[in-house]
């Protein structure tokens, strides 16, 4: 039986918005006014650090967590409980267990993804790392431990392709989704492994990849090994899953367990390859993607140098182009998987950050776009939060 959807969330009438912009050279914070027209940029925080993700805890709306590493130094997490005025480093950042003598242990190269825990579990956070591991904190991100059901699972090395070829910056565990109806129901995505689900708080996991292409593997429909770029469950209908995959855009309606490629309805000249996937905060049939060129040798730029957001309003049956205000040509940037998000206003605001350091915003669900920051470093993540 399909689960009962949660009641619709109330639209906040917050006076302003916060955008957390993680870049290759530090964290920038943008404060927007109520109409979302005026934006103030502050930062950089942690100048010179690679910031893969920065997230404000929606439960207390005070705690900021930042996943960072520097070129020379190992990975860590920084925390602030006063909107970034002061910072403290996590006293025990995510780390794999020390291996027994003579055995080779894993080493966290960077923390890639942060997800606040369920509303009923204040202080709980999840983190995804490279190499692909899942970590949990129960104290607001100060100390972290591996989720043994995943990291110590006898299948972990196989699922996560440990020791095998991966992306140039390392395979990443990301897209940790927590069912708002059930804190023990989790989904995650791996850039070399696929989608996995747990219904017991992370004690056990199973692959959830049927129907999803993996055209870089020899098997026609492998159980795992897929390249998930971004996985999102619909906030008000968590049984609806959307996935931007290396091999197209997909949707799955639970309790079904087979992905349907909804990206085939995208224009052929654009294709359905990209990194981010954003779902409307109140309408499970509305989602946005940012296509990139996945043809020939995979340039991973805006197709034809003409960046555009594509939206569906009907769960992927049709897509339409949203490019008003974006460069009409000669713009060869793209948008990474954490670098596009929505706010919870009505109409919804959308935001994305580019590999060339610009932040773009729309206050009308993507119809019109304007730049709100430029000349930043290469952007890895953009997260919106009400002030």
């Amino acid at each position, binding site marked *: 039986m399909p689960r009962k959807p949660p009641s619709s969330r109330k639209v906040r009438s917050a006076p302003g918005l916060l955008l957390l912009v993680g870049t290759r050279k530090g964290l920038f914070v943008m404060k927007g006014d109520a109409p979302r027209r005026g934006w103030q940029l502050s930062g950089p925080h942690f100048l*010179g650090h690679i910031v893969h993700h920065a997230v404000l805890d929606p439960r207390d709306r005070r705690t900021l967590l930042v996943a960072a590493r*520097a*070129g*020379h*130094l*190992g990975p*860590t997490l920084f925390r602030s409980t006063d909107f970034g005025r002061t910072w403290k*480093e996590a*006293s025990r*950042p995510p*780390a*794999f*267990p*020390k*291996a027994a003598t003579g055995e*080779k*242990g*894993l*080493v*966290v190269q960077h923390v890639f993804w942060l997800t606040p825990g369920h509303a009923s579990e204040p202080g709980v956070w999840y983190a995804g790392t490279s190499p692909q591991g899942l970590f949990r904190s129960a104290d607001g991100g100060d100390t972290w431990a591996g989720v043994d059901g995943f990291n110590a699972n006898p299948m972990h090395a196989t699922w996560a392709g440990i020791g095998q070829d991966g992306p140039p910056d390392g395979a990443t565990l990301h897209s940790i989704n927590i069912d708002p109806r059930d804190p023990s129901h989790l989904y995650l995505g791996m850039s070399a492994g696929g989608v996995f689900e747990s219904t017991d708080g992370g004690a056990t996991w199973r692959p959830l990849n049927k129907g999803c292409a993996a055209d870089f593997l020899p098997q026609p429909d492998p159980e795992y090994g897929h390249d998930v770029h971004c996985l999102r469950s619909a906030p008000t209908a968590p049984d609806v899953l959307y996935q931007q995959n290396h091999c197209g855009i997909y949707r799955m309606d639970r309790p079904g367990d087979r992905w349907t490629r909804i990206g085939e309805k995208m224009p052929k000249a654009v294709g359905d390859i990209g990194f981010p996937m954003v779902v409307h905060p109140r309408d499970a049939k509305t989602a946005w993607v940012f296509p990139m060129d996945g043809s020939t040798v995979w340039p991973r730029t805006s197709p034809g140098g003409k960046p555009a957001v594509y939206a569906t309003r009907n769960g992927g049956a049709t897509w339409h182009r949203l490019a008003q205000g974006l460069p009409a040509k000669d713009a060869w940037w793209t948008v990474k998987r954490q670098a596009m998000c929505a706010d919870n206003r009505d109409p919804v605001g959308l935001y994305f950050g580019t590999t060339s350091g610009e932040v773009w915003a729309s206050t009308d669900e993507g119809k019109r776009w304007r730049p709100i920051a430029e000349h930043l470093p290469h952007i890895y993540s953009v997260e919106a939060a009400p002030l």
Partner: protein
Amino acid sequence: MNVAVPSPLRSYTDGKAAVNASGATVAELLADLDRRYPGIRFRMIDEQDAIRQHIRIFVNRERVHGLGAHLAPSDEVIIITAISGG
């Protein structure tokens, strides 16, 4: 003993380029540094107790490759951050 701290790690040492720490081995020295400056060790040494790729530790101008190297109180320890790219 005197430990030279490179600029990427001086956020831990209140900006100091050189600090005092003690230990009979590099492992003990790093543990003492971490007691004095919490968090500094993990930025240099990974969870498998290996010196991170872009960190170099020299004792009396000789590079050490592991944490078991012995130290004397008069030794000079220099930590250097090596080329890590842009």
